[in-house]
């Protein structure tokens, strides 16, 4: 789950990283906000999760004279299609130098990896293209509780030593918050020392239970409902509803639909060992989506009972045509149940996909 900038910054501040003074206001709340009078120049930042927020008009410069106008105009704006609901107003820092610092997961080394460069303030992929040698990366062995000194020295590559403290503090946040990404860009050197001018935190959805977060905000309403039933759902924009079991098979089904010229409406993985209730819920979930004209059920499992699946499909009773490919335990009983009620049953994945694409076109 992605945290908003102000949420991430609050966490960084608690970990000992300095952040600019500021406050967050919500749309529709009182406009009588008060910043400290000794802040002459501000930055007004839309709290939206888009790449290139500044270029897209999501960040405005302001002073005491035009602060309210800036806030009002930003609340009217859409940043890359996303309406602005929250705004962070911060003091504008006096920037001497900008650095980039992030920590993410390195699949290959199976460990956290720290990225640092003195070429901060721009998007990191720009630096990667223009000056790849300027980015230093170092994995930290997962059983160490602190970042070793030699790793810090390697990362800094001559940059000011006090950045070590920020790296260690961000590393602590990364571990304690079960983060997949912790990023400070830019990390700013001012006459007064180092500040995190912008921050990003993405938490591991599988660890929200121990982070005191009950609900994953990143999910749409349908996706949340799917999640509550133990499904995994991603909404796409086509008209063929897809239900599969297992992410790989479901994904391969979506791929094959596209390859055969159809347009998948979703990716819905019902998970292993689905019984009639789960199948019925999955079918109803898709049945309620107005753009779906045909539903393709592609289930393969040693432990999924096909008769249960068949009963689930029948009980769901949705208006759309359903094309079914089933393989597994009690396959014959399942097929008998469905074909006796007029459902189209096909033996292979390719035949089933082909039939669905034809119906939908």
């Amino acid at each position, binding site marked *: 789950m992605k945290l908003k900038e102000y949420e991430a910054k609050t966490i960084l501040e608690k970990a000992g990283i300095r952040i600019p003074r500021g406050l967050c206001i919500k749309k529709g709340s009182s406009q009588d906000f008060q910043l400290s009078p000794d802040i002459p120049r501000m930055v007004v930042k839309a709290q939206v999760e888009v*790449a290139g927020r500044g270029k897209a008009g999501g960040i405005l410069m302001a002073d005491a004279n035009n602060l309210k106008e800036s806030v009002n105009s930003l609340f009217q704006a859409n940043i890359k299609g996303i309406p602005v609901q929250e705004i962070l107003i911060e003091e504008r820092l006096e920037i001497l130098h900008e650095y980039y610092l*992030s*920590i*993410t*997961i*390195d*699949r*290959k080394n*199976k*460990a*956290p*990896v720290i*990225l640092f460069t003195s070429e901060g303030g721009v*998007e*990191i*992929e720009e630096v990667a293209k223009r000056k790849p040698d300027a*980015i230093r*990366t170092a994995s930290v*062995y*997962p*059983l160490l509780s602190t970042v070793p000194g030699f790793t810090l020295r390697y990362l800094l590559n001559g940059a000011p030593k006090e950045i070590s403290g920020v790296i260690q503090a961000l590393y602590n946040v990364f*571990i304690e918050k*079960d983060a*997949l*990404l912790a*990023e400070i860009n830019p990390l700013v050197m001012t006459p007064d020392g180092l500040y995190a001018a912008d921050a*990003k935190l*993405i938490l*591991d959805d*599988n*660890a929200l*239970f*121990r982070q005191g977060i009950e609900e994953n905000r990143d999910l749409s309403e349908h996706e949340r409902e799917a999640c509550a039933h133990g499904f995994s759902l*991603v909404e*796409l924009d086509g008209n063929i509803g897809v239900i*599969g*079991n*297992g*992410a*790989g*098979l*479901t*994904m*391969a089904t*979506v*791929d*094959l639909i*596209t*390859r055969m010229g159809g347009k*998948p409406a979703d*990716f819905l993985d019902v998970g*292993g060992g689905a019984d009639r209730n789960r199948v019925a819920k999955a079918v109803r979930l898709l049945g309620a989506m107005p753009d779906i004209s045909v539903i393709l059920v592609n289930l*393969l*499992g*040693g*432990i999924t009972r096909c008769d249960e699946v068949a009963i689930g499909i029948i009980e769901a009773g949705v208006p759309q045509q359903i094309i079914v490919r089933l*393989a*597994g335990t009690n396959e014959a009983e399942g097929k008998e149940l469905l074909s006796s009620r007029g459902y189209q049953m096909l033996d292979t*994945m*390719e035949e089933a996909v082909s039939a669905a694409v034809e119906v939908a076109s």
Partner: protein
Amino acid sequence: MIYADRNTGVIIGGATGNQGSFHMARMNQYAQQVGGKGVVAGVTPGKGGREVNGVPIYDSYSDAVREHDASAAVIFVPGSAAGDSVMEAADAGLDLAVVITEHIPVHDVMRAVSYAGIRGCRVIGPNCPGILSPGEINMGIMPVHLASQGNVGVISRSGTLTYEVVHELTRSGIGQSSIIGIGGDPVIGQTFADVIENFTNDPLTRAVVILGELGGNLEEEGARDADLPVVAFIAGTTAPPDKRMGHAGAIVTGGEGDANAKIARLRDMGIPVADRLSEIPAIIKRVL
């Protein structure tokens, strides 16, 4: 076959749960058919002294190995405690831990895999269907009736996709030496490279099918140094790009994720990549 054979004694972690007890029975049924040792004990903290399907349950792995000859664990423990179970199995001296559990926090996986490595315990998974070596041993949740004995190795990040391909191979008369589900999580124990190396040293295996997905670049890493013929399939060519790991992740691996880019890189290495699952048996016949 690789990682385990019919003489491997298996302990089930989370043996008293629904999944654990159900699959334990299936594994023992298979062991009986092939004359293997099968599951010798189960572990669930606080439930030691019971029996499930005739298998004795212990409070800890160390209690279980004191009483039984076992070298491998298959773990069904829920996500919040699964990392701990892997470390405990490694600590008790087991040299293989197959982790079926999904939704384990990735930080737990990193720590558990590291710790197991220090203890000389290899980890397969998490979030995987386990190992099936037809005619030898079933250490997981794969539908055994779809598989057949032969000399093609299968390595996969996904469960049901594996069954689909194994089904296609068997129907085309191509048997399998070992089918290894390495798991779909960002961080896993044994990677494509590790498993391919094991297949290379396996006298039974003559070619390998790798079933990959979008995300990471471990398929290419594994296929690059393979001494055996490799055939690949990559799922997720039409999936919307997953931006969750952000650009930092892409910079670490040099262009992470996209399935089409992955396919292009594999083809550049001379690895045949099937566009459809149904093409895999024909390509295997060609390379053998």
